[in-house]
């Protein structure tokens, strides 16, 4: 690790700690009402969903339209563990089981689906996603369309917050390892990647499975926040919602996905005062955003305090250069 990256890590870690304190302290002290708490938990769960989908859409460069299904599988698996197994540490265990169940579903879907590319892959993930939902709807053990009830409501803001930190950190470090580079190389040029020794099939399935795993964990958090589960919550519309977050944040950017997840969770609520107009404004914002920033908020770049400082210096330097050019001419 060179000095610059160490400096960047330390700065970002301090910023993260400060943010955590500012974020968690008021909630711990009970100064925040239940409505806000619910909103925060939803935002945190959405962060995991958006960043995990980013592994497939942003890093691998494949469009997936069935991400909500993995969340659903994780939610049900985790809920069943909590309901039927009363063991110590059952919550983290339930989340892990949720993640693993979703990851297994990811492999089962990914192996056949990832032979396709482009729009065809998008469509087949849509198909698989809906089939998973319909199967869940028809499984008696899951309560089917009548909902699964009695899940302990133990997802709190600190729990979700810690889960977000762990998941996002793991996705970040994975993205910057030989595996992450291999996945990125497939996005850039699949032929060049396989010609450079990258086993592309393996890495496509790996990216897809990891995304499903983290979506499963988010699903577990969701189940233990809601207390009630209905398969139709994990439909195509919800998958689209997460896709919008990834694209809006900038495909390939984890921080972009995080910001977009927060903004898109809060925006409709902030617009609540405008009652009927709020979804209209939301959709207009979406269209205008795409028209004016087709690459999303951050493009593929990551938000970092050091890079802000750097770009600030750069602007100042170029401003100075311009000044010099003018004085010369």
């Amino acid at each position, binding site marked *: 690790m060179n000095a610059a990256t160490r400096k960047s890590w330390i700065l970002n870690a301090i910023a993260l700690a400060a943010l955590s304190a500012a974020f968690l302290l008021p909630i711990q002290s009970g100064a925040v009402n239940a409505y806000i708490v619910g909103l925060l938990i939803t935002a945190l769960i959405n962060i995991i969903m958006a960043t995990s989908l980013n592994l497939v*859409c942003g890093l691998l460069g494949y*469009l997936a339209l069935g991400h909500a299904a993995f969340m659903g599988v994780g939610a049900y698996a985790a809920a069943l563990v909590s309901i039927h197994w009363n063991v110590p540490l059952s919550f983290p265990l339930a989340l892990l089981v949720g993640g693993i169940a979703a990851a297994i579903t990811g492999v089962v879907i990914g192996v*056949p689906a990832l*032979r*396709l590319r482009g*729009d*065809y892959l*998008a*469509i*087949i993930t849509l*198909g*698989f996603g*809906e*089939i998973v939902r*319909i*199967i869940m*709807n*028809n499984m008696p053990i899951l309560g089917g369309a009548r909902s699964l009830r009695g899940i302990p409501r133990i997802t709190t803001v600190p729990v979700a917050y810690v889960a977000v930190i762990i998941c996002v950190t793991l996705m970040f470090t994975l993205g910057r390892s030989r595996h992450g580079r291999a996945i990125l190389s497939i996005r850039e040029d699949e*032929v060049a990647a396989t010609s450079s020794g990258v086993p592309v099939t393996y890495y496509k399935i790996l990216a897809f499975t990891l995304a499903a795993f983290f979506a499963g964990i988010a699903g577990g958090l969701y189940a233990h926040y809601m207390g009630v589960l209905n398969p139709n919550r994990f439909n*195509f*519309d919800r998958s*689209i919602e997460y*896709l*919008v977050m990834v*694209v*809006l944040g900038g*495909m390939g950017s984890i921080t972009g996905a995080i910001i977009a997840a927060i903004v898109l969770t809060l925006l409709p609520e902030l617009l609540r005062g405008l009652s*009927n*107009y709020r*979804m*209209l404004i*939301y*959709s*207009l914002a*979406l*269209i205008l955003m*795409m*028209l004016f920033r*087709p*690459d999303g908020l951050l493009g593929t770049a990551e938000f970092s305090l050091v890079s802000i400082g750097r770009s600030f210096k750069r602007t100042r330097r170029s401003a100075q250069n311009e000044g010099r050019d003018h004085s010369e001419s």
Partner: protein
Amino acid sequence: MNILLTQLINGLHVGSVYALIALGYTMVYGIVKLINFAHGDIIMVGAYAALMLLTSTALPFGIAAVLSVLFCVTLGALVERIAYKPLRNSPRISSLITTIGVSFFLQNSVQMIFSPTPRPFPIRLNVPTIVIGSLKISGLTFVTILVAVLLMIALELFVRRTRMGKAMRAVSEDMQAAQLMGININTTISMTFAIGAALAAVGAILYSTAYPSVSPTMGALPGLKAFIAAVLGGIGLMPGAMLGGFIMGVAESLTKGYISTQLSDAVVFGILIIVLLVKPSGILGKHVSEKV
């Protein structure tokens, strides 16, 4: 035997509506390689337009239908100009998200104007039931299939014979070459969206007469199924959309009749997955491999 025939005819009824809607998806995809998620909502707008004209004016059904089709045509072309044209050179995913934005926008505008409550669609078509032996075919079914088939023939002739139709085929083959040949790309693309919207509007009216309940989200399901129909037949291919639409309708109707209503969607998606895995380019599609 009669039950089977009745189910098949019901399947053709819904299938012909899917086929009309699927044509819009496929034509747009064939020309700009864009999955237009707002296409399903054009159906909904078409249904509301017809509903308004039929309930608040004394216009006869035919004129009301033509006017609502014209309304959708204008809307389709307008949406293309405002929301998609500026993104033609952007990443394709951006335009995809824009179509989703347009879809939300249309749903929410209609919801604001008409409230989310579903409204009954006034059927003012009095067609006699056709009886062949012991088999009864509802007049509506007959009219629907007839209208759909006639429109498909007209569309096929339009694309084969007219100047604009040839321009469309040229643009879908190779946009840059078509431009060099002096074809106006912008007009051609707008025209494609307009025709797609027109077919969707006709589909909307036919759909509403079969399922007479109009609501702001009513376009989602037939839209999704028509889209699958387009992929099934081979996206980008007009005969594929027609074939796909009929297959979807019949498969859905047979599942409802013989297996279970709940599983009919699963069967539809199952067919989609199998077709994509066996022949990704669709039933009528050609395999294209990447040049290295």
